[in-house]
């Protein structure tokens, strides 16, 4: 039986910062842009090592998206950095027209996503970003689960051509994915094999699902855990194959139920392999100030909530 443990906690945003630095050393076309959040986005090391390839935009996110689009003309690969709220909702039209519709090779890198931003509260806790971004034609959407996977995803984006959205977060979080574990954009990662139920999770919720699996295993329930780090393009085959075996699914995400991972999985299953689905997600609500773990609990995103969803979905089989 595969077991996941951790010895340290690290923020996923540091995975982005360290990945960007490593990528910058490998690929001189990589440039960094930031809207007055260098420290928060962990872009300082890149800035220090590549001052000529780093652009402080100021608090002007719309301008940052336009500049990034323009910088691709001539071969640069811009990585924009700001909070997830300001990376999407604030600049949706700029992304839509100048980046997505124009097919520009811009990597929109977004930190402090979801409830786990914590004390800053609902103005900054965006829970709609994945939905907005996945609706844009041609946009790749990635939500990695820990420091190592965020670093791997950042580096993988260097070879990816086209617009992409990379979502990560603020708090220290268990590092449970091996640094050398393969990461491929668009390829789901089956972390635990099982036969009774499939849990599809991404982002911080993968660790919550790992904890839920341990509780369910004690109850004699065999869980298959699949990390859907890439919501778009979705690994449809992996989803169908797993649910064909287990017969039901639970989705887990730090996002609105509307528009996120659960939507994508349910859409896939209802079209190609109808099966019961339960969704662990925020249910049409804004967040609020608080400690990350308290918020996850209050808004129904704890391991216990996943356990309940599994029991519910299995009863519907």
């Amino acid at each position, binding site marked *: 039986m595969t077991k996941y443990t951790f010895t340290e906690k690290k923020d996923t945003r540091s995975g982005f910062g360290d990945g960007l630095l490593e990528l910058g050393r490998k690929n001189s076309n990589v440039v960094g842009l930031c809207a007055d959040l260098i420290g928060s986005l962990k872009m300082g090391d890149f800035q220090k090592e590549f001052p000529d390839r780093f652009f402080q935009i100021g608090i002007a996110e719309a*301008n940052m998206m*336009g500049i990034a689009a*323009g910088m*691709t*003309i001539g*071969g640069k690969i811009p990585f924009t950095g700001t909070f997830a709220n300001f990376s999407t909702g604030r600049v949706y039209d700029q992304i839509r027209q*100048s980046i997505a519709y*124009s097919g520009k090779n811009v990597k929109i890198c977004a930190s402090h996503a979801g409830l786990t931003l914590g004390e800053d509260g609902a103005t900054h806790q965006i829970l709609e970003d994945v939905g907005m971004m996945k609706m844009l034609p041609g946009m790749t959407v990635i939500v990695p689960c820990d420091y190592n996977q965020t670093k791997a995803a950042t580096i993988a984006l260097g070879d990816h051509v086209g617009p992409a959205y990379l979502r990560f977060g603020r708090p220290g979080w268990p590092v449970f994915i091996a640094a050398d574990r393969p990461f491929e954009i668009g390829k789901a990662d089956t972390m635990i094999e099982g036969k009774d139920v499939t849990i599809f999770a991404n982002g911080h919720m993968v660790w919550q699902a790992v904890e839920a699996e341990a509780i369910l295993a004690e109850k004699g329930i065999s869980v298959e855990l699949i990390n859907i780090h890439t919501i778009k393009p979705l690994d449809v085959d992996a989803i169908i194959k797993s649910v064909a075996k287990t017969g039901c699914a639970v989705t887990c995400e730090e996002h609105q139920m509307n528009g996120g991972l659960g939507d994508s999985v349910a859409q896939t299953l209802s079209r190609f392999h109808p099966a019961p689905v339960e969704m662990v997600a925020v249910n049409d609500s804004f967040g609020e100030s608080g400690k990350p773990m308290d918020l996850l609990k209050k808004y129904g995103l704890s391991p216990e909530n996943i356990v309940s969803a599994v029991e519910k979905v299995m009863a519907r089989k």
Partner: protein
Amino acid sequence: MAELATLKKLPSQIRRDIVRMVHACQSGHPGGSLGCTEFFVALYFEIMKHDKSFQMDGKDEDLFFLSNGHISPVWYSTLARAGYFDVKELATFRQLNTRLQGHPATHEHLPGIRVASGSLGQGLSVAIGAAQTKKLNNDNRLVFTLMGDGEQQEGQVWEAAMYAAHNKIDNLVATIDFNGQQIDGPVDKVLSLYDLKAKWKAFGWEVIESNGNDLEEVIKTLKHAISLTRKGKPVMNLMKTEMGFGVDFMVGTHKWHGIAPNDEQLADALSQLEETVGDY
């Protein structure tokens, strides 16, 4: 570079293209297109070093970005007349399956277009980005962009204005089509710009003023603007034009911002515009 006498034949022909394109599909924006015709002729036939075989990256070429994408008819006609694609394709403007979308787009791979525009306020930022990449690539050519005056009401324009001056984006020549009109009426009635020259100066730009409906003056102005580049400041050309210039019943009013002439109006317009190098 062409002889001035040859260049002077183009605006009238391009204006014919504009009104015929807009008439054929009964939609589009003739007013601003007619007002900016001399600017496009100057840019593509005299000022810019550019390659009609078209590479997206435009290395060692001057680049142009149209921010007020609704004046696509004048750009499409100019690109076709400059050899980017067959002039016959102008007949497909705004029709199903066309590369000549209502607003400029890269999606259908029309040669000459490097970014989509139409949602206003975004082009200057894109132009700044392209100018920065030219600097990184040690590419000494320039970036040009055109915005509308009504477009100055978009906040992103001023984000870009602040950024370009602070970062000394001095390989950039921006122009504003200062025709004083927008869809709902005169700009001063809709939302006044007050002293636009003072605003751009205050934002740290080198600002020049010009008349945009005299071809020789436009060429002279753009050459002067180029002489002001690489001196640590972005350059702004406030270009006075008349919306609808060249067609007497369209000139000077917002009413022809975004509507098409009927058959009689088309005939009237064409009677005022000489066919110089051949209709498409």
